[in-house]
C-alpha cells in the first residue's frame, strides 16, 4: 500500500470517528463563537450584503455568492483562531487514535 493511500485511509478513519463523537459539534460551536467574537462574521456578512447589493438581488445565486467570498473568507480567519482549532483537532487525534491502532492501520 502506498504512502498516500495509507494517509487517505487514515483520514477516512479519523473522519468517521470525528463524526461519531460529539467533538465535531463542540468544535463547530467553538469555532462559530470565536469567529463571531473576533468580528469575522460581521465582516463577512457585510461583504456578502455589499456583493448582493452591487449585483442586484435577482442576479446573484447562493453558489456564486459563496464562491465570491470563499477565498477571502478563509484568509480572513485570524491566525490565533486557526491555531486554537488545530490544537483541538490534534488533541482529539491523540485521544482517539491510539498508537497500536495507528500501527495496525498502517500495516
Amino acid at each position, binding site marked *: 500500500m502506498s504512502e498516500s493511500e495509507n494517509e487517505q485511509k487514515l483520514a477516512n478513519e479519523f473522519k468517521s470517528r470525528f*463524526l461519531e463523537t460529539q467533538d*465535531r*459539534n463542540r468544535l*463547530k460551536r467553538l469555532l462559530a463563537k470565536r469567529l463571531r467574537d473576533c468580528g469575522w462574521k460581521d465582516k463577512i*456578512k457585510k461583504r*456578502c*450584503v*455589499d456583493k*448582493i*447589493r*452591487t*449585483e*442586484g*438581488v*435577482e*442576479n446573484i*445565486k*447562493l*453558489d456564486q*455568492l459563496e464562491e465570491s467570498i470563499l477565498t477571502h473568507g478563509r484568509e480572513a480567519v485570524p491566525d490565533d483562531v486557526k491555531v486554537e482549532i488545530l490544537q483541538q483537532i490534534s488533541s482529539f487525534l491523540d485521544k482517539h487514535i491510539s498508537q497500536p491502532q495507528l500501527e495496525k492501520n498502517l500495516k
Partner: protein
Amino acid sequence: MTSKGNSKSTQRKIKQKKPSTATNKKKMVTVDNHVKVTPKIEKIEPMLLKQTDISSVKGKPTKPLKKGVKRKAEDSLVDETFQVSNAAVSHPRISQKVGCRHLEKYKEHNPESYLVNFKAIAELSMRCYKIGIPRESKALRHQKCSDCNLKGDRLHACLDCVFIGCWRGESHARKHFKNTRHIFATDVQRLEIFCFGCSDYIYDIDYDNVKKHEEVRAEEKESDIKEPARKRARYVPWKPSAEESEKIKKNSTPFPCSGLRGLLNMGATCFMNAVLQTFMHNPIIKNYFMTDKHNMNICGTSGCMCCEVDNLFQEFHSGEKKPYPPCSFLQSMWLSSKELAGYSEQDAHEFYLAAINKMHGDSHETKHQELNANIQNCECIMHKTFGGCFQSRIKCSQCDMSSDREEHMVEWQLHLRGLVTNQKKKNGTKASQESNSNEMDVDKNSLEDCLDRYCEKEQLPGFKCEDCENRYLSEGESFGKAKGSVNSCSRTTTCKKLPPVLTFVVERFHRASTKTNTIKNEAEFEFPEEIDMAKWTSRGHDVLEKGGTLDDLPNYKYNLLSVVNHEGKINTGHYTVYCKSRDRWFLFDDHAVKCASVEEVLQSKRKAYLCFYVADTLEYDQPNVN
C-alpha cells in the same frame, strides 16, 4: 382635507375600554413594525386596528414581547443565519413575496397540502435544535443524511417526501432532486427553503408564518420546562367572531384616514409639495421613518433634510387634518442647499434629484466617502429606495469584442417621440394639438414603447473598435477587414439592477437649442398600472437574445405607486400628484386631498411627468381586504 368618507367607514378606532381580555389587547400592540416606537405610537396605533387589519395581523403569529424589551423590527430578520435572499433589502417588513415562480406553481397544484410537510419538519426541527432540554428527543437530534449517514450541518429535508440529504458539494440533497424532481428542500435547522429550480433560497410568507408559529410553540414549551411554576399563557391567534366584530363595529368610532394631509403652497412650491407627497407615500421611505431610523430628536442637526422629512411624517400622522405649511422644510432647504435655493426652475424633477442628494448627504447611513464614489452600495435611505444600475454594452459586429459599463441610476429618463404643444391662439379658442410639422409622425408613446426604444441596439458611427484596430495592426491585411471598421460597433443599454422603487421621468420639457425657449411636450404618454420589467433587464435581454423565454426569471413585476403631473404651460403651470395609500388612490393638489380612481390616474397621459413604480415583490401594507 377633503378626503371623502368611503375610506373612513372601514377605519374604525377601537376605544380603549373595548374588547376582550387583557392578553388580546397586549398582542394587538405588538402587531406591526409600521408603528413608530415613540410617543407617536399612540397616534398611529388606532389606524392599525381597523377590523380588517386585525384579522390579517392576528393570523400571523408574532413572537411575544419579552418583558419590557422593545422588540426591534430588525431582530426578527437578522438571525444567526445569513438571510441571503433578504440581505439586499435589509428593511423590516419588506420581503420577497413570490420571488420564485416554481413555488407559485407548486402552491397552485397543492393548495391543500403545500405546508403540511414543512410544518412537520419545522416542529421536529424546533424539538431538535431550539429546545435544549428534553432528553426524549435526543434521538431526533442526530438527524442524518438518508444516503450517506452524514450527520451535522446543513442537512436539507425534501418538502415532498421524507428524504433528508447532506448539502456540501455534489450533495445527496441535490442528487435526490435530480432523481425525483422534488424541487424544494428546507434546511432542517434554519428552516429556510431552497429551490433547486432557482438554485437559491427563496422566501415565502406562508412558510415563514409556519416557522414563526412553531418558534412560538417551542418557546412556550421551553419556558414550561424551565419555569414550570410560571404557567406561561399560550399564544392563540385571534380572529374576531361575527359577534365580536359586530361588537367592535358598534363600539368604535371611525378614525379619519391617517397619513393623508395636504401641504400648503408657500408661493409656487407645488413642485416641492408634489414630490414630497410621493415620498410620504413611498412604502420604503415611510417604513424607514416610521420605525425611527432617523429621529429628529436624536439627530437634531439643523438644516438636516432627513429630520425635516421625519418631522413631516409626525405631522402627517398626528391626526391633525388641516393642511400643513412646510415652512421649516422650505427654510432648511434654502439655508442648506444652493441647488434648491431660489427654486427658480420650479421643476419637480430637479427637486427630486436635489432631495436625493441632500438626504444622501444628511443620512447617517451614508458612507462618507467622496460623493459618487461607490454610490452603488450607498446605504442611505434614498439610494436604497431609488438606486439601481444600468448596463451599457458595446459590441463589435466584426470581432467578438464586447465591453460592459455600469452606471448608477436613480431615475429612468424616457424620451417622447413627436412633439405636441398646446397653445392658445390669439382669438382665444383653444387650439387642440397644434403641433409642429411632424404631426403625422407622432408615435405611440406608451411606457413599454419608450422602454423598448431605450433598450434598442444603437449603432455608434465613428466609434473605433480597438480590438479590430489592434488586430489589423498586428495581423496586417491578413485580418481581412479594412482598417476603417469604424461603424461596426453598437451599444445596448439595459437595466442591470432594478431599484425597489423605479422612477420614470418623461422628458416633457424640450429645448431645441440654447437660443430657443424651452417648450413643453404634451404628447400622450400611456402607462400601465402594472408592468413586468423582465424584458428590459440585462438578464432578460440576454435570455431573449439567446432565444429563451422569460419564464424562468425572477419576478420583475412593478406596480404603479404615484404619478406627478404637470398641468398648464411651462412657467405658469401647476403640479399635482396621485399617490396610492393603503391600496387607494388620492389626488394631492397642494392643500387639497381628494379620492381618486385608478382609471382617473391612468388618464393623465398628457400631464404625467414623473411616474413611480414599486416592486411587486415587496410586501408592505396589509392590503385592505373587505
